[in-house]
């Protein structure tokens, strides 16, 4: 048994960490947070040059053809650095959707552009409040064009293409949903940036008015594809969250060692030590659940739906827990704009809601455990 990443994968992690430490320090995150640019273009280009954007894209489509374990490794580092780039939307959602359901022509057209950093992609799924469900999709694909509004769409305002979930039937079943691929340069689609809790990443509203779109995957199988896509993305996002959790824990630990109060480092007080110990516990549980998710994702195991939900829940909890208590350890300084604690706090809460919120995944996990139990 080797329930761990390989030496080569660990080497890749070190490479990615070094690259991001240099190219993505907190001040880079802040240029996007403070609205100076919609995402860090230079970093995005650098990630492409390092081969990170196409790490799991087959060589035939311009990628490195490594695999999903390698992508998990990169995802963790992206989360750790709070990279202000459309990585999750382009790589976990758009590229994965193409790999799952795209035609060869669609893959040929878009995947090389993703790998080279020339195209940003996203998934337009949500329509206002609520968690992923076929009933929540009202945007219509009747009569040859898309009509409706999607929000929030991650990185929707900077995307070059979007995978759009649309209603193509009215039977009240999952099969009413189909997926479409929209070139964002097409007529009839308009993007508007939305203010969100983590401005280091963009959220948008996309309005479609008789927008031309090509089908992605078979008609009526849209929901089944979305479900698979969300499970796969959940594992990858969970790695981002674990990366963020670890970094927030380190920040808290470092501050507790340096800050003196009442004549001693605050890290020598049990109230602070125990808070940090509990953060370590959350982060460790999440990491272990993520490893299982990574195994399931990389082997296409039948356990993937359950493993993905567990990884997602655990990592969401860990990132939120570590990010909020990192501020607590920092005290007043943690609540300043100047300190970086709030960057992690913002990201932890934004990633918790992407792909469906905690309660959605809790529900999904129990459904899946129950099915396995019955089988």
């Amino acid at each position, binding site marked *: *048994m*080797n*329930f*761990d*990443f*390989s030496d080569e994968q660990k080497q890749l992690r070190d490479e990615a960490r070094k690259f991001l430490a240099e190219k993505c320090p907190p001040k880079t995150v802040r240029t996007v947070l403070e609205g100076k640019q919609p995402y860090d273009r230079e970093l995005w280009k650098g990630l492409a040059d390092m081969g990170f954007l196409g790490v799991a894209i087959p060589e035939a489509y311009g990628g490195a053809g490594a695999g999903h*374990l390698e992508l998990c490794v990169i995802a963790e580092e992206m989360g750790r650095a709070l990279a202000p780039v459309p990585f999750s939307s382009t790589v976990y959602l758009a590229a994965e959707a193409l790999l799952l359901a795209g035609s060869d022509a669609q893959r040929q057209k878009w995947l090389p552009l993703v790998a080279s950093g020339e195209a940003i992609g996203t998934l337009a799924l949500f329509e206002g409040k609520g968690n992923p469900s076929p009933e929540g999709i009202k945007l219509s694909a009747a009569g040859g064009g898309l009509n409706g509004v999607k929000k929030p769409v991650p990185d929707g305002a900077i995307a070059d293409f979007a995978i759009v979930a649309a209603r193509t039937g009215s039977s009240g079943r999952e099969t009413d949903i189909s997926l479409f691929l929209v070139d964002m340069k097409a007529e009839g689609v308009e993007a508007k940036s939305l203010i969100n809790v983590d401005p280091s990443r963009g959220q948008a509203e996309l309005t479609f008015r008789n927008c031309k779109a090509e089908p992605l995957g078979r008609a009526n199988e849209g929901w089944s594809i979305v479900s698979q896509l969300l499970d796969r993305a959940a594992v990858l996002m969970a790695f981002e969250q674990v990366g963020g959790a670890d970094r927030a824990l380190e920040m808290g*630990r470092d501050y*507790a*060692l340096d800050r003196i109060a009442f004549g*001693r*480092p605050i*890290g*020598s007080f*049990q109230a*602070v*030590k*125990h808070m*940090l*110990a*509990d953060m*370590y*516990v959350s982060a*460790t*549980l*999440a990491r*272990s*659940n993520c*490893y*299982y998710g*990574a*195994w399931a994702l*990389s082997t296409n195991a039948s356990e993937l739906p359950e493993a993905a*939900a*567990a990884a997602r*829940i*655990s990592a969401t*909890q860990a990132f939120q827990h570590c990010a909020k208590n990192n501020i607590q350890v920092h005290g007043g300084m943690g609540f300043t704009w100047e300190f970086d604690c709030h960057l992690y706090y913002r990201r932890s809460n934004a990633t918790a809601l992407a792909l469906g919120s905690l*309660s959605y*995944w*809790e*529900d999904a*996990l*129990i459904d899946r*455990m*129950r099915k396995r*139990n019955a089988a």
Partner: protein
Amino acid sequence: MNFDDTPQEAAFRAEARAWIAANAPKQYEDELKKASLGRTQLKGANILEVAKAWQKKKAEAGWACLHWPKEYGGRGASPIERMIWQQEEGAFGKLSAMFIIGHGMCGPTMMGYAGEDQKRKYLPPLASGEKIWCQLFSEPAGGSDVAGLRTRAERKGDDWIVNGQKIWTSGAHYSDYGILLTRTDPNVPKHKGLTMFFLDMKVPGVEIKPIKQANGQSEFNEVYFTDVKIPDVQRLGAANDGWNVSLTTLMNERMSIGAGVSTGFPELFEFCNNLMLEDGPAIDDRGVRSKLANWAVKASGLKYTSMRAISALSKGERPGPENSIGKLVAGSMVQDVAAYALDLQGAAGVLSGPEDAEAAGKFQAMLLRAPGTRVEGGTDEIMRNIIAERVLGLPGDIRVDKDVPFNKIPTKGRG
């Protein structure tokens, strides 16, 4: 990343599996599987006898204390082989509960500090379960602060005379031998005046009184020593070096990965899967699902954390510190799980008799036993200190008694 055995591991697993299939006491398998915290019982059999018989059988075939050297009754197996054995032994491993302290802590301490003749004499019957050992460290005045213990040992010729009291000694009432930490010099700071011995629990002056626990059971004892004579040859390590000897003991406890701590989750999931509430099955209720999901990911997180440790062993590495979270997470989780199971039962949750209670009173027994799990073998607070100091590198507590002679340390909080 894979869950596959190496060819050698697979061969070892197959051999272990075949031997267990042919030799394990199958008639108790169901009851052992169902055993949960606060309740392990075998109908119509004495669990002590069943456990001893199974251990003896294992020892005769070379399956006892796998990681011990062969000359002391073990198999000289690698850590990963030991883990594979535990996985294959499954529910029958619960029969080893009464040997854990002897095998995990007393044995390794003897190996480190006893003379060669003593090792050859005492270790094989400990491995085979013919002799049971206990560990006499905790005292009324020294729990988490074990170095604060007060049991005195005074040198008299070739012997030591011991007077004092130990507490929370698991299994003292059925133990043949024990390792004993005593104070031999009260005029120096507390860590510097301790000495370790081993002794025969049946010698005159040793009196054992079971503790009636808060849950009504008696798993632990108070042990009183009145002028107990221990020959100096039974001293382990140098006089006044007992603290260092005890660290070996405790380190061995942490090195052994443990047969898996009980979280109560599988029991709760099964219960919710079958329970009908007024408006339908409990497991369809949104609130129930949310609770279950939170505990599910803790249970799976612990499971995969220990797999990461096993992987490290498999590669010949020492497991990282991740495994130190197990007892801390499981201890309070089992308490919360049990309380929630009672909550779901509504007013009837108060009933704990096996005939009237839901799930035969399993969760009521779990609830009442759970407070002990958060205290025994290191309280939650001590575990958090260990994680904070050894894993995260935070400063140790400021110890106001560190350089004070033991007999000058205050003994009362108020007045």
